[in-house]
C-alpha cells in the first residue's frame, strides 16, 4: 500500500511537469490551431536565458521576470519574422517550419551553453515532504501550475483579448468581420505561449536538470496530457498531465513483466481508448458544425 501511495504521489509530482508544458501547448493551440513542435525548445532556451542572467548576478526573481518578458517578446518576434510569411501556406509547410525551428534552437543552445547538464536553482527549496516522495520544489511547481491555470482561465473566458484570440484561432474569417485583428492575435498567442513555456521550463529544470535536450520527452508527454484533457481546455490539459503522470507510474509498477519496459505505450493505449469515446478529450469543448 505504501508503494501504491508513493507511486501515485510521485506520479502527481511528475505529472506537474507534464501539466506545466501542456498549458503552453494549449496556449499555442488556442492561438494558431496547430501544435508547435518547437515549443519545448523555446522553453528550454528561455530557461537557459534565465540561468545566464543568474550567472551574471541577477537574483532569482529578477532573472525569472526578465526571462519571461524576453520570451514573450521573442515569441512575437518569431511569429512576425518566420510564421507570418507562412500564414497562408499549407499545414505541412508550417510543420516543416516548426521542425526547422526546433533544430535551430536546439543546436544554437548547444553551441552557446554546451551539452553538460547544469543544476538550476529553485525558490521553494528541496526539503522532502510527505516522507520524501514529493520535494518542496515539486509542491511549489504544482502551485505555480494551478496559478497559471487560473490566469489562463480568466484570460480566455473573461477578457476581451482572450475571447478575441479564441475567435481568431477557431474562425479567422468571422473574427475579421467583427473587427478582430487576427494577425496580431496570433502574434500575441505566440508571445504568451513562449512566456508560459519559459515559466514551465524554469519550474521543470530543477527536477530534470538544464541541458539542450531536456524538453524532448517533456513536450511529448505534455502534448499527450493536453490531448487527453482536451486541447481547448486549460483545466483539462492540467488534469490530463497529472493523469498521464500517475497512469504511467502505476503501469510501470503493477503490470508484471512488460509493465516497466512498456509503461509509456500502455499509458498511451489507455489514452487512445479514452479518445475513441471522447474525441475532444475528457474536458474539451465538443465541436459542433453547423450544416
Amino acid at each position, binding site marked *: 500500500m*505504501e*508503494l501504491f501511495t*508513493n*507511486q501515485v504521489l*510521485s*506520479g502527481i*509530482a*511528475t505529472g506537474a*511537469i*507534464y501539466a506545466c508544458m501542456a498549458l503552453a501547448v494549449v496556449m499555442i493551440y488556442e492561438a494558431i490551431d496547430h501544435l508547435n513542435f518547437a515549443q519545448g525548445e523555446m522553453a528550454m532556451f528561455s530557461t537557459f536565458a534565465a540561468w545566464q542572467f543568474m550567472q551574471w548576478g541577477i537574483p532569482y526573481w529578477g532573472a525569472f521576470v526578465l526571462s519571461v518578458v524576453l520570451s514573450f517578446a521573442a515569441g512575437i518576434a518569431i511569429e512576425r519574422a518566420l510564421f507570418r510569411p507562412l500564414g497562408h501556406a499549407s499545414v505541412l509547410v508550417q510543420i516543416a517550419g516548426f521542425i526547422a525551428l526546433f*533544430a535551430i534552437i536546439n*543546436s544554437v543552445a*548547444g553551441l552557446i551553453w*554546451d*551539452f*553538460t*547538464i*547544469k*543544476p538550476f536553482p529553485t525558490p521553494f527549496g*528541496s526539503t*522532502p515532504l510527505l*516522507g*520524501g*516522495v514529493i*520535494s518542496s520544489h515539486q509542491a511549489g511547481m504544482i502551485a505555480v501550475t494551478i496559478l497559471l491555470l487560473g490566469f489562463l482561465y480568466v484570460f480566455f473566458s473573461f477578457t476581451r483579448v482572450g475571447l478575441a484570440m479564441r475567435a481568431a484561432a477557431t474562425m479567422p474569417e468571422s473574427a475579421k468581420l467583427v473587427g478582430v485583428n487576427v494577425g496580431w492575435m496570433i502574434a500575441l498567442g505566440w508571445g504568451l505561449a513562449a512566456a508560459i513555456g519559459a515559466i514551465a521550463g524554469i519550474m*521543470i529544470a530543477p*527536477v*530534470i*536538470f538544464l*541541458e*539542450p*535536450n*531536456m524538453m*524532448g*520527452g*517533456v513536450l*511529448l*508527454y505534455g502534448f499527450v496530457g493536453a490531448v487527453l484533457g482536451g486541447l481547448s481546455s486549460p483545466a483539462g490539459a492540467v488534469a490530463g498531465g497529472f493523469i498521464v503522470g500517475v497512469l*504511467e*507510474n502505476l503501469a*510501470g*509498477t503493477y503490470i508484471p513483466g512488460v509493465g*516497466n*519496459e512498456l509503461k*509509456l505505450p500502455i499509458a498511451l493505449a489507455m489514452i487512445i481508448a479514452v479518445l475513441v469515446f471522447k474525441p475532444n478529450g475528457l474536458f474539451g469543448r465538443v465541436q459542433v458544425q453547423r450544416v
Partner: protein
Amino acid sequence: MSIKVRSRLAALSAATLAVTMMSGAAFAQKKYDTGATDTEIKIGNIMPYSGPASAYGVIGKTIDAYFKKINAEGGINGRKISFISYDDGYSPPKAVEQVRKLVESDEVLLVFDPLGTPSNTAIQKYLNQKKVPQLFVATGATKWNDPKSFPWTMGWQPNYQTEGQIYAKYVLKEKPNAKIAVLYQNDDYGKDYLKGFKDGLGAKAASMIVAESSYEVSEPTIDSHIVKLKSSGADVFFNIATPKFAAQAIKKAAEIDWKPMQFLNNVSASIGSVIKPAGFENAQGIISAAYLKDATDQQWKNDAGMKRFDEFLAKYFPEGNRIDLNVIFGYSVSQTMVQVLKQAGDNLTRANVMKEAASLKDLELDLLLPGIKINTGPTDFAPISSVQLMRFKGDTWERFGDVLSADATN
C-alpha cells in the same frame, strides 16, 4: 612531448627504432597507402555533432584541436595531419554513408575514433572488407576486442562488462548477503553493464538482485523507478545511467531517504557534470571506477599531465569545457593515435598502422590514472583494460585498492 614512456622502454624503443632505420636503409623506401604522403596523413572520423547524442560531438572538436597542436609543433615525423570529421547524427545508415565518403572520395588512411556502438557496428564490416583501420572506436561495448574476426577494428576504453564484473566482485567481498537493486538504460550499453555485473556475481546473481528497473532515454524523469527500487528493500544500488539520469537518480535517492551502498558506472563519474548537479551531500560514499583523471577533481591540481592539458586548452581549444569528461577523452585518445603514427615512422601502410596499433607497450598518457597503461598485442585489441575503484568523499574521488584489470577478475 606529452606522452611519457618509461625511460627503460624509451631506451628500448629507441634501440628498436635504430634497428628499423638500419634495416630500412637497406631498401630506403618510404611506404605509403592511400591517405599518406611525404607531407600529409589523412585521418577520417564520424561524430554525432547533431541529434540525440550531440553531447559527444565535443570529442571530435577536441581531437581536431589536438591535431592542430601537433601540426603547429611540426607534425608527426614531418607530416601534417588532415583531420576530416563528418556528422553522422548518431544514425547508423548515415554513418555508413559518411564512412564510404571518407574512404572512397576523401581517401583517408584510416578511420579514427568513430563514436557510438550502433554506428561502429554499422561500419565495421565495410571497413574490414576494405582493409581500412577502424581505430580506437569510442564505445565501451565488449565486442571490439575481436582481432580474429575483425583484424581492422580496435577499441580503446575499458569495456562495460569488465567494469560491471569489478563492481560485482567488490559486492561479493564486502557485502556477501547484499540485496541489490539495479537501474539501467534500456539499450546495448545498459545491458552490457548488467551482463558483466551478473557474470561477476555468478550463481548468486539470481538471489542477490532483488529488483531491476530499466528506463528509456525519452523519459523526462526516472523518479518513479527510484521509488520502486527503494521499496524492494535493497541495500545495494547499481546506477547504470547516462549523466543526466544518473544525477537525477542520486538526487532522488537522497530525497526519499534511501541510503544503500551505491555503485555509479564510469560513464557518469564526472564530478562537474554529474556529482555537482546531483549535490555533493547526496553523493558521499558512492563507489565508481575510473581510468581517466577528472579535471574537476582537486587532487590533480598540480599534476604535470593535467597542467599540459590545461596549456593545450588555453592555447588550442579555449572554447573547450574542462569539466566535460568528453574533452579529457578526446585529448587522451588523440595522444594514443599520435603515438601509433609516430611508431609507424615512414611505413604508413594501413597494415603497418594496424601492426603498430597492436604493439603499444606500457604507454602512459597525460590523463590516464597513475598505474593505468595502454598495452596491445596481436591478440589483444583492448588498449585500456584496467580501472581503479574510487569512493566519493567531500568534493573529490578517493581512489582505493589496486588497479584492477579484466584478467584479474576472471
